């Protein structure tokens, strides 16, 4: 079950070069290609004649030619050529998806075309800010339903167990969580006061000694997240307080694209408020984050299998409040969308 009226990441921009680039999103096959002006088009990846994927054909200028009988489609999905036919059948067309290129990512709108508003794409703070560094992200495929990933990204508690050697510390086991349900999604957060910095962050802190640490896990519908890590000198942190200049800020952006019900493509990158041009820092961050996400992947893949094959009931705990409220509200949105679609048909 997916929310259709939303932007989803289809690829990194550099992945779509001179060739045809097939992707599967929300159970649909889509082909991406660059037009001669450099912009990207997204079409249903199936020729209406015999359903050969258009991605097995060729790019011809701003059009795609089917590799079976040469039917040709422009970026609006309109058929411009049917070799051997006197007239082009009106029904010869493929679905065209709205595409936006932003933050180095290609975003595809999976819902009703006239509702595709680029302003709805997830906002990345400090994008282009010269004081902020970025480590260009990565992606991976995870064999789990995307909602296990939104669960994970609304769950600061797992850090103490899954990422013991990196993001975790003793304080991440016991400090209670706050859950805010808002219009765009759910945020789970906590401040841990006067604690040891976690091993992964310690080398980057610009101040000595202990710290006040905030974990801020915010997921927007349907499955886009920002995880904010804040480390302030001990006793200077706290909600709503002006933080000292040496405070460490790292914003981790996480964009999930359901490939289907059982598989999810995961895209991410991080923004930080220091060492903007230090390639070594970026490389270290990229490697560490990748390592942590590999730990998540092992857990989430097994969780999906475990839940699908459970023989006894599973239970929900207090730490599941955020994830469950998120799931409930998203399910309502999906239901409402399906109802509206049925009514329109």
């Amino acid at each position, binding site marked *: 079950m997916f929310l259709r009226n939303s932007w989803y990441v289809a690829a990194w921009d550099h992945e779509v070069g001179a060739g045809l680039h097939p992707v599967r999103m929300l159970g649909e096959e889509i082909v991406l290609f660059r037009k001669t002006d450099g912009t990207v088009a997204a079409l249903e990846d199936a020729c209406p004649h015999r359903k050969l994927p258009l991605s097995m054909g060729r790019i011809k200028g701003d059009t795609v030619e089917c590799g079976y009988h040469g039917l040709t489609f422009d970026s609006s999905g309109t058929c411009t050529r049917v070799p051997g036919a006197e007239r082009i059948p009106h029904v010869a067309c493929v679905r065209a998806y709205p595409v936006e290129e932003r933050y180095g990512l290609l975003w595809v709108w999976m819902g009703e075309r006239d509702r595709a508003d680029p302003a709805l794409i997830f906002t990345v703070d400090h994008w282009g800010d010269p004081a902020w560094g970025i480590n260009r992200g990565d992606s991976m495929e995870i064999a789990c339903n995307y909602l296990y990933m939104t669960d994970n990204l609304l769950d600061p508690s797992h850090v103490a167990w899954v990422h013991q050697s990196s993001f975790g510390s003793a304080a991440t086991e016991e400090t209670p969580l706050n859950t805010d349900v808002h219009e765009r999604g759910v945020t789970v957060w906590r401040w841990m006061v006067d604690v040891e910095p976690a091993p992964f962050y310690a080398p980057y802190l610009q101040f000595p000694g202990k710290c006040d640490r905030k974990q801020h896990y915010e997921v927007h519908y349907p499955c886009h997240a920002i995880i904010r890590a804040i480390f302030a000198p001990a006793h200077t942190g706290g909600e709503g307080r002006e933080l000292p200049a040496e405070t460490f800020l790292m914003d981790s952006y996480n964009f999930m694209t359901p490939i289907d019900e059982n598989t999810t493509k995961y895209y991410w990158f991080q923004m930080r408020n220091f060492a903007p041009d230090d390639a070594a820092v970026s490389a270290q961050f990229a490697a560490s984050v990748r390592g942590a996400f590999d730990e998540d992947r092992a857990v989430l893949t097994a969780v999906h299998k475990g839940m699908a094959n459970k023989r006894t009931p599973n*239970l*929900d705990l*207090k730490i599941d409040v955020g994830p*469950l409220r998120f799931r409930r509200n998203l*399910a*309502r949105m999906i239901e409402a969308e399906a109802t509206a679609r049925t009514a329109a048909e």
Partner: protein
Amino acid sequence: MTPPEAPPPPAAPGLRALRVVAKTRESSVITSFWLEAADGQPLPPFRAGQFLTLHLPVYQGTIRRNYSLSGPPDQGRYRITVKREGANGPGRPDGIGSSHLHDRIGPGDILQAQGPHGAFVLDETSERPVVLLSGGVGLTPMVAMLHVLACRSTREVHFLHACENGDVHALRDEVRALVALRPGLRAHFRYRQPTGADRAARAFDGEGYFTREAIRGLLSLDDYDVYLCGPPPFMQAVHAALRSLGVPKTRIAYEFFGPATVLEDAAAAPPPAAAAPIPAPASAAAGSGLRVTFARSGLAVDWDATAPSLLDFAEAQGLTPAFSCRAGVCGTCTSRLVSGEVRYVEDPLDPPQEGELLLCCTHPVSPVVLDL
């Protein structure tokens, strides 16, 4: 909606996926659904009288509805028997759940269910004769009890059932067949307005209500275990009739279908489902003045306003209700609110049904009686 190769979507907590394997029309308004575990494993036995809580995805979101199990309890599969309810006045079931089942659910469909659970169960340790007294679709738990009594005991059983007429009478042939299994079993069907066809077929045994006189004419003087289930007006009338015939309260176990009301004067705590007398309430401590009565435990204590929730308060009295999240999302601590009013200090993920509460996130706002 889900492709066949996909595993079921991630389910809500404590839910079991059940596949509908058969749908049987029992009367003009009542339909049975036979359910098996979606994973093919045999379903665990239940206690006759218990119910399933179905989580039904309807237009308004997911709703939860309780349906008594009407089949034999140990066959590895379940049967619920559901009356199509209409929204016909305040306090009546809204019909959303039953219409969904009647109109949209059929063989092959998957239902998400919690349970079986419920404390209204047949006491199999008792050796007293049994009266199973039901009105309308309230006969469903009684049929499950009759299965057990017919096959596993030698007790005398009176299955007394009241309904409008033969058109709406469900499971008639099944009950007749069960009481024919051995001596000592007897069924009496009472129609309020029998049709001409009912008269021609001699489908019923009596006409009108189960009045005091009607019951006295059917039951000889004895010490019975009485099980009572039906709509509130039926329950109130029959309960009063039984009491006036000298049946002790402690011998009457009952379950409301629809909103729970109080059978006798509002001050009296109703008897527990198990036929055991309630000990005298503990003396009230000074405090909030809001009395919290744990009916099944025979305990009445003044609410402590510093308690985070009724769950914490119950635990402070030495009770051990089931719980998991303690935050209003898992539904494990759902309990029956026999009477009184509570307020939610945390929004529950699924609003509890009429007559129920989530202990973990409520405070009393009036004296309350809990089924604990």
